[in-house]
């Protein structure tokens, strides 16, 4: 497995760049992963990333994008729980990119 070094510590990622160990995650690593994805993190990005981490904590899976959209709509409102908003934040797919930055595994049901 490849290793990456962030802020003087090294971490293991899989061949697609997803963090191997969820517990390794911190803000520095999120920043590094975002940079790899060419995403400039704003408060709106963090809101989605933090939402995903809470979702994972509760259900132990990374949600499919359809499920993520619905869940965000419920919690943060319909103006955020829609594909347009989420794809503007994460152009290569909110489930894929935001999950990666959140240190989660690749979403189940992501086809």
């Amino acid at each position, binding site marked *: 497995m490849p290793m990456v070094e962030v802020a003087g510590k090294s971490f293991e990622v899989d061949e697609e760049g997803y963090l191997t160990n969820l517990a390794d995650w911190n803000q520095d690593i999120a920043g590094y992963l975002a940079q790899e994805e060419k995403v400039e993190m704003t408060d709106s990005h963090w809101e989605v990333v933090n939402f995903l981490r809470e979702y994972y904590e509760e*259900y132990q899976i990374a949600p*499919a994008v359809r499920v993520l959209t*619905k869940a965000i709509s419920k919690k943060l409102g319909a103006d955020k729980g829609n594909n347009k908003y989420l794809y503007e934040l994460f152009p290569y797919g909110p489930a894929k990119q935001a999950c990666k930055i959140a240190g989660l595994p690749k979403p*189940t*049901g992501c086809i």
Partner: protein
Amino acid sequence: MSDMMDDMEGGEGVVKKFMFVNRKAPHGTIYALEGLEVVLVSAAFDQDVSMVFADDGVYELIKGMNTKGIEVKDFSKTYRALDGYDIEKLYVEKASMDARGLTEADLIVDVTVLDSAEMANLMAEQDVVVSY
């Protein structure tokens, strides 16, 4: 569900009844976790999906699991995500529950308890039954 059926009458594609039958204890084999992932993926295809828990499969739904001692992931909480995937038909077999001293209150999700005859009828209605 009725909305989905209405959509189908518009010629949107074919909806089949898929039933996934879980018969094994959650850990020790990979069947329960892999079976659950298959169900989560199947949700993307807008089919009529149900899950059955019978025999040792009822143990998959036990509340308050702790897997630290055996160093495997506790995926029992993931059954609670099924609702968000629009998979709401969860059935458990009464005889399997009774034999293990379990009631609905011991389970992590809301289920429908069916006796063996009701379960057999439900299975007979399915287009596809996948058993683990």
